[in-house]
């Protein structure tokens, strides 16, 4: 009989799949699982946000949106990260409104605003702006390259 296991997509989404540090991509099982397994391990495709209020499954992104998101992922990975060392200058992540704890993973934006890495990455995947000062992160990054 016919093959009941539908391939999720034929589009080339390798750029998006390569972003496992930002968003885990579901790994394709090797070989065809049995029907029962296929039902139980079915993982919904990852969701992306071409703009803050738009949510789309990876299979529904237009080519333009795929490129936009791939660029975003590349840019986010160039932003410096670190661990909170208890410094008194910064105390709270304005996204989750939680206090920084020693050892928390942080990300620093070019405008010098600092957030939990998981909090800010979630936002930057929707909009490349700093939530506190609304400065576009990509433009600020270019300026900082030019002045250095």
């Amino acid at each position, binding site marked *: 009989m016919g093959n009941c296991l539908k391939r999720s997509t034929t589009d080339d989404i390798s750029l998006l799949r390569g972003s496992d540090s930002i968003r885990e991509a579901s790994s394709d099982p090797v070989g065809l699982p049995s029907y029962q397994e296929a039902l139980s391990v079915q993982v919904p495709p990852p969701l992306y*946000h071409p703009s*803050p*209020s738009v*949510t789309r499954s990876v299979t529904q992104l237009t080519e333009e949106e795929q490129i936009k998101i791939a660029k975003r992922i590349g840019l986010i990975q160039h932003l410096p990260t670190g661990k909170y060392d208890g410094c008194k200058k910064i105390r709270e992540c*304005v*996204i*989750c*409104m*939680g206090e920084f704890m020693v050892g928390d993973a942080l990300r620093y934006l070019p405008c010098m605003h600092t957030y939990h890495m998981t*909090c800010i990455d*979630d*936002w930057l995947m*929707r909009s490349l*702006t700093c*939530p*506190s000062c*609304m400065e576009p992160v990509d433009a600020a990054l270019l300026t900082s390259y030019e002045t250095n």
Partner: protein
Amino acid sequence: MTERSPSKRRLHRELLSLIKEPPPGVSLDAEQIEQNLFLWTIHLEGAERTLYEGESFQLQFKFSDNYPFDSPEVIFTGEHIPIHPHVYSNGHICLSILTDDWSPALSVQSVCLSIVSMLSSCKEKQRPPDNAFYVKTCNKNPKKTKWWYHDDSV
């Protein structure tokens, strides 16, 4: 939805800080909000020495699981909807931070303060010029109103 989802945790923190230090003219029923953290009713008082002095209003906030990455859905509810050029008679509010200019650094408190200041700066009480048409044709959810995004004339 687990008890400790990030949106719930953040909403809970916001609630605690609003109970502790409510901004002037803003009050809420904490017990009611505890029942459902994703739906808040806030009481607003018109600021002194403004056109809305002595009036009180109710704001409704609806949050999604993606809050604070998604903006809340904010409308005026109840009997008394303020008469203001940015407020439709069905309670929908034309305010860019509720859609395009939303940022996860904003909060219930900052949205309330923006709305109080929007009311306070009003010079003449009137409904938006397209009120009748808008109210008849709009979606229930004000965030679905596309043309707000281009409206910066009023």
